[in-house]
């Protein structure tokens, strides 16, 4: 009997020894995203990788890195140079010039509400999965910052402040590219835009003009704008489906877009639907910035469509060039679209270099 009791006691201690050991491990300060109530009520939760939770220290580090030209090979270019806060983190130039004076062939994408890109496909052609992965690319792109990650890591490691900031954000002062992109991604996830006039209208805090209301109806009318199938509605504050479409820009393609990434000819000429938020700040428009004004964009859908094998079936009356909106409808649609612009977002000091 004594032996059996001994066995039980032994087993008991073995079980107890399995519990988590408490070690004084450094934990940065959690800083969960502040999800706007309208987002909370109407769409799915944002995507936050479990291996990169939002923290006060991580966000602050990411912001510093975002505005710091140290990431570029010659210390002349920061992320913010082509993703400027006043342009809703886009570039007013059609194509951005890199440190060597070379230009890419796509317009810089605006940055906001990125955590709600549920499929996590980033860039106009969706070639990067996840914000962290996206952030790897501009640093080493010869047309952009033209650096190497080894060099970036060395410069940051030798910097007077960064090792300590990484220590605070991630519990290690040993800097590597993964932690750099994690910090930048944390900052980018905080770039939430939810305070446009139209947002306030939905919360009964602002009144739309008759022109803006008519423009919204044109947007939602399948026989007129029919914008909602790809750009969402008053129930989806993202104003994009984050999917890829050929919207009839060209009859033949010089840039295959998604098709170059997937290798599927059925994807040729497809690019991601951009959000229609903040259009007041994000000109020029389309993946290649070909349209300088919103009037040009609306005219394209109204009478400028080009047929091609992969044009989206939702592009209607292609033979006539589009849905032939009246001048008044075009003007009203434009006023509605501009009501989606969020001046508080571009003026938010938390998002500016200060």
């Amino acid at each position, binding site marked *: 009997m004594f032996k059996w009791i001994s066995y039980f006691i032994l087993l008991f201690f073995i079980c107890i020894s399995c519990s988590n050991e408490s070690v004084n491990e450094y934990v940065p300060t959690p800083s969960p995203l502040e999800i706007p109530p309208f987002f909370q009520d109407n769409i799915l939760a944002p995507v936050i990788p479990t291996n990169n939770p939002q923290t006060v220290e991580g966000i602050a580090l990411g912001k510093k890195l975002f505005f710091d030209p140290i990431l570029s090979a010659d210390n002349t270019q920061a992320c913010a140079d082509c993703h400027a806060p006043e342009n809703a983190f886009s570039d007013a130039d059609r194509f951005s010039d890199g440190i060597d004076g070379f230009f890419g062939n796509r317009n810089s994408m605006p940055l906001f509400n990125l955590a709600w890109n549920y499929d996590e496909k980033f860039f106009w052609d969706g070639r990067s999965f996840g914000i962290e992965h996206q952030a790897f690319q501009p640093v080493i792109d010869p047309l952009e910052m033209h650096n190497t990650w080894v060099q970036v890591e060395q410069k940051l490691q030798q910097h007077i402040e960064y090792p300590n900031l990484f220590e605070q954000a991630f519990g290690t002062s040993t800097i590597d590219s993964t932690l750099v992109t994690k910090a930048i991604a944390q900052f980018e996830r905080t770039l939430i835009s939810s305070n446009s006039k139209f947002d306030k209208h939905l919360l009964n805090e602002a009144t739309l003009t008759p022109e803006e209301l008519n423009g919204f109806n044109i947007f939602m009318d399948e026989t007129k704008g029919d914008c909602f199938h790809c750009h969402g509605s008053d129930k*989806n504050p993202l104003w994009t489906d984050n999917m890829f479409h050929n919207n009839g820009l060209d009859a033949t393609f010089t840039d295959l877009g998604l098709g170059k990434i997937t290798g599927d000819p059925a994807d040729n000429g497809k690019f991601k639907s951009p959000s229609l938020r903040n259009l007041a700040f994000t000109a020029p428009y389309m993946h290649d910035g070909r349209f300088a004004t919103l009037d040009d964009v609306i005219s394209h859908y109204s009478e400028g469509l080009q047929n091609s094998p992969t044009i989206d079936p939702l592009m209607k009356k292609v033979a006539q060039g589009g849905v032939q909106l009246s001048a008044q409808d075009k003007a009203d649609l434009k006023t509605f679209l501009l009501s989606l612009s969020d001046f508080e977002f571009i003026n938010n000091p938390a998002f500016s270099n200060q």
Partner: protein
Amino acid sequence: MRNIFPILVFSFITLLSCGSDNDDEVSQANVTFNFDHNWDASPVTNSNFNTIQYTNANGEELSITKLRYLISNITFQKSDGETFVLDGYNLVDVTNNTNLSFTPTTTIPTGTYSKVLFTFGFNNDANYNNNYPDLNSATWNVPSILGGGYHYMQLEGKFIDNTTTETGYAYHAIRALDNSGATQEFQDTFFEVDLGEVTITHNATFEIDMNIAEWFKNPNTWDLNVLNNMLMPNFNAQVMMSQNGQNVFSLNTVNQ
């Protein structure tokens, strides 16, 4: 060695006791619904999309570029009228190969059911009285000026029109609304699909077929040259879609 033997026996019995209980299996069953698609018996998956290879009842050659649809209100009905309505709805997305299989969280008692039903789309209560963040996120809404609520189906593709031009079509099913008069006139276009009598003895998997060709066939021979786009505000087109949908679904097998 003699001391180790009782420990081994004890450990073995302890481990055995961790097995899951199967006591309830005889009375409650999980049901799974798999959705398969064909064009007049020729299987269709997203790998068949984007190529003009089908011919509809009106003789138009066409392709499919997108297909997603909503089913809801799965109901098991006994001959005495007792019903079991399973929670949830499912947005079948053939384009992205997602939600082709749906297992409601609710279980049902084993036994014989005279009817197994589901709703194509949403009934009016579900369509208007709830807000669905997952469907909103999937841009599945219907604009208020077109009646509000949610889409029932989006079937899109290209067809060769009567000028031999490749033209897009967007066969979108919603609740029919006539906006032409002084007051809005609605007509219900969701419909119940009856899979017939089924005896559930264990966890069961229903293999449900959708014959996509039927959307263009019976009783209305669909002329894509006339009805190819802007169909959501087209009251008559919505009613015709609902009529043609009656023969679209069928039960292939129940595996259990």
